[in-house]
């Protein structure tokens, strides 16, 4: 998979992976937010179960 947004360092600016594919950057952002939300939800579920088991 070629993730580089450039083929030469001459005149390079934003050079991070997928810098030339904004739709993918948005996707990564949404997935990242999803990971955080999912983890918080799992935290709440873990707490509810722990309280019930006590």
């Amino acid at each position: 998979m070629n993730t580089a947004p450039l083929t030469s360092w001459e005149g390079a600016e934003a050079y991070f992976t997928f810098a030339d594919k904004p739709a993918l950057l948005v996707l990564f952002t949404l997935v990242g937010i999803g990971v955080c939300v999912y983890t918080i939800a799992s935290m709440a579920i873990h707490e509810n179960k722990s309280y019930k088991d006590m």
Partner: protein
Amino acid sequence: MEQSVPELMARLDSLESSLSMATTINSEVFYWWCTALMLAIHAGFLAYEMGASRAKNALASGMKNLIAFAFLIPAFYYIGWWIYLAFPTGFSISDGSEAGLPWSEYMGPNLTDNASGIFYAAFTLFAATTASIMSGSVIERIRISGFTILALFLGAVVWVFGASWGWHPDGWLTTEWGLHDVGAAGAVHTVAGFFTLGVLINLGPRIGRFNADGTVNNINGHNMPMSLIGLMLIVMGFFGFLGGCIIYTGDTWMTIYNTPATLSAFAFNTLMGVAGGMIGAYLVTRDPFWMMSGALIGVISSAPALDLYYPGLAFLISFGGGCVMPKLNDILVGKFKIDDAVGAVAVHGFGGVWGLVMAGIFASGYPNVAGPEISFVGQLSSAVVFMVLGFAPGYVLSYILKVVGLLRVTEAAEVAGLDKAEVPASAYPESSVPAAFTNDPTSPTPAE
């Protein structure tokens, strides 16, 4: 050997280019180490809050700090930095703020931008600090999930509006009212302190904190020395925090409001503020915990005008803060029955207000680059904005969490200890902690 004019011009261009690059690199290096130093604040909050908890809650308290820190970093990347750039004029989105969106070309490695990453990093640590201010007050009875939601909202949204409005060269509190708050006493401390107050009202006190007749029981933490070391680490980290509050331009230093300053000014007044707050708090409490909290009060009291104060004046302002805030905490606990486990509402919330108002009195008349001169009315009005900005969302969001059952642990879990209920690890597995140390009012002491 003679050189031609074109050769000399080329050499000059080369030197200018090297100088410019050196300035850029110096700036990056400076904020890199400020950010690293700010990590000490979080090591400090971790130790301080675990020590302030009873042994049965030590790990759960620490877990809160770790979770807030971990979640704040991506949250500030996803939304916080954009909010800071977007809303200096109020609630309308400013031009150029798209540079802070997470898919912007500036929010990642970019050979033409040496600033965005390093400022994002410093502001992220400010954000995590803001969330940690709430963290200690709510120990021993808040659900970690509820706390995480509150911390994210405070650290990635609420305080950022305060920073954009009042800790930004184009912030409307400065351009309209002349606010001067170089050390972020208002945007960080007042907002976080009053957010915490809103949360505490809905969260309620720990079991056993108040008797039926309204008298107060002290609930001592299990490790005061750990708390004291933690507080000293926070003070150390504040040198990174306050260093991050001054702008390095290469040939001079500027405040965040573009007024000229020196790092020396910050050094004078930060140290004198720390000392003043410690001495003031010692005078009125004789308590080492409050003496170290007094160091924070001292920093916050002088923070708004660190660039302007005569150091002897900063000492006295911070001494005053150190004397007053412990008493305000007594009133919050004794009269209003607010169980603030570490006194953060007084230290940060009212400490920030104190600092802003003192700057209105003692730094009045200094000119701003954008907006009117510093004034008492401007500082006081801005303090009210920060108080409301913190309190209202803190109260509303914690009320919603309370209604849906995500705010407070069950009574059984609170009595047994949150470590037992929530954490798959043991703080002190090889020792049996006597009930007297856990200070659990439902457990008999060994003598009984």
